[in-house]
């Protein structure tokens, strides 16, 4: 039996990455993800990998592009303002079909914003990690153990679908410690990287990693092909957790740290006899439409809870599509709601 250890989310993520074969990490310091970089700096040299502090977030993501092109498992991490800087590179990674893992431990924004936990980068993560038609898979763990499992899954999905994968956490998840077990992490089968730039060895035609297609016909065809892959990801890779959704009147929808607050509020509501359930998306892109679609037929209303002014709520409304009211409750700027605060919102909406 393996022994549980107590680790911070940031450190657990780094350790999980190393354990699943991430050999290269390029970063730039920013609160509140710095422990992740520092863990990599400490561990990578001892374990045959590389930690390199880049001169900027922009350089870091482009080093990721280079290392991913060369076929290794590679990761970078940052927090909100740093991710904005990386978006140029992420767009190129998407356009070049390169696998890599990008971590965003979100903090308040816009601008320099704050350093406390937030979820206000949902739109950026799911809609626009750079210019152009494209997506990255976005995973949103809610516990430190899930951070570990999700990190492993992120590297596997990146390799399987040749796409960047973002782990969207927040300051609280990165900073908090919980017990984790590294032994029980499921793995997927990943294809060989015969497209990588490792030198031809004079044995094959040269490989080109590129996102430039000057003929619009070529680019359209390529983007359409990529979207066929996205359709497969949407069909097969959506992940979510449901609780108390059998008899539910009000469905809470929340991800990451907010889902934990929602869970506490749900339990308090249940104790009061209120039929409250929870849908917690684990993949934000692809957005888990199935459970919400199903519940749209039976639930009286939905309440989306976020640490933002309301971003994921738009995805919920798209799925519910007018079949039930979809309300929103959020805090922003680095503020977190308490379970009691959320319970009051639930009671008000259920007319209690």
């Amino acid at each position: 039996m393996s022994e549980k250890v107590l680790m911070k989310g940031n450190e657990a993520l780094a350790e999980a990455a190393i354990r699943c074969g991430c050999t290269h990490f390029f970063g730039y310091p920013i609160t509140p993800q710095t422990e992740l970089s520092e863990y990599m700096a400490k561990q990578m040299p001892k374990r045959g990998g590389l930690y390199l502090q880049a001169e900027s977030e922009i350089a870091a993501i482009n080093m990721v592009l280079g290392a991913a092109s060369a076929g290794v498992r590679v990761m970078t991490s940052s927090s909100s303002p740093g991710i904005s800087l990386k978006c140029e590179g992420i767009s190129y990674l998407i356009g070049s079909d390169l696998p890599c893992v990008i971590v965003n431990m979100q903090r308040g924004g816009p601008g320099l914003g704050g350093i406390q936990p937030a979820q206000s980068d949902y739109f950026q993560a799911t809609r626009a990690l750079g210019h152009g038609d494209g997506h990255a898979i976005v995973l949103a763990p809610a516990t430190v153990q899930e951070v570990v499992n999700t990190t492993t899954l992120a590297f596997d999905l990146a390799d399987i679908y040749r796409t960047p994968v973002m782990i969207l956490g927040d300051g609280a998840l990165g900073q908090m410690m919980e017990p984790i077990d590294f032994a029980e992490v499921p793995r997927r089968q990943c294809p060989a990287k015969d497209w990588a730039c490792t030198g031809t060895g004079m044995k094959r035609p040269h490989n080109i990693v590129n996102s430039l297609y000057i003929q619009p016909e070529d680019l359209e065809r390529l983007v359409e092909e990529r979207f066929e892959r996205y359709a497969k990801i949407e069909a097969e890779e959506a992940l979510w957790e449901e609780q108390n959704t059998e008899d539910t009147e009000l469905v809470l929808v929340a991800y990451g740290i907010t889902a934990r607050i929602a869970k506490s509020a749900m339990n308090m509501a249940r104790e009061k006899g209120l039929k409250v359930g929870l849908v917690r998306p684990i993949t934000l892109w692809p957005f888990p439409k199935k459970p919400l679609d199903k519940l749209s037929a039976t639930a009286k209303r939905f309440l989306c809870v976020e640490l933002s002014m309301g971003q994921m709520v738009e995805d919920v409304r798209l799925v519910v599509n007018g079949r039930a009211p979809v309300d929103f409750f959020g805090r922003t700027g680095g503020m977190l709601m308490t379970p009691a605060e959320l319970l009051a919102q639930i009671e008000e909406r259920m007319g209690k």
Partner: protein
Amino acid sequence: MSATRMMLAGFGGQGILFAGKLLAYAGMLANKNVSWLPSYGPEMRGGTANCAVIVSDEEIGSPLVPAPDVLLALNLPSFEKFEPAVEAGGLIVFDSSLIPQTSQRTDVTVCAVNATSMASDEGLNGLANMIMIGKFLRASGLFDLDTVFRALEKCVPPSKAALLEKNKQAISLGYNA
């Protein structure tokens, strides 16, 4: 009570985060669910530091502790900030060397311990946090000393093994105070 929600608060440098980690580790060794969430920011050194620790039989939802069952306060600003928030029936342990007042609340248990003075008297400088932990364990019975000592062995890095005995000594001192 299936869950104990604790707030440990004081100045940066008093070992607040370490004390919280020790309790979380002890909870883990006692096969409970645990979470540890620190305050963080640019004002860590010399500024206020606190961490929220939850030890629970159930899966832990929110890791925040807006209304603690237990408050360990090691300075006046923290005492003033969190004392009113403690749940009725809760426990407040505070360092009376540094906090020149006491709680007026009658619905909570209040324990004063001269932790910082005791630490310097006993040659245990910097271990007021562990004296506080000892006092808390005695007052709450949350974990037995043995569990906490085993947790301590997990929390103190091998390079600082010399500190292990001093930490244990400080915990015992607080326990028996």
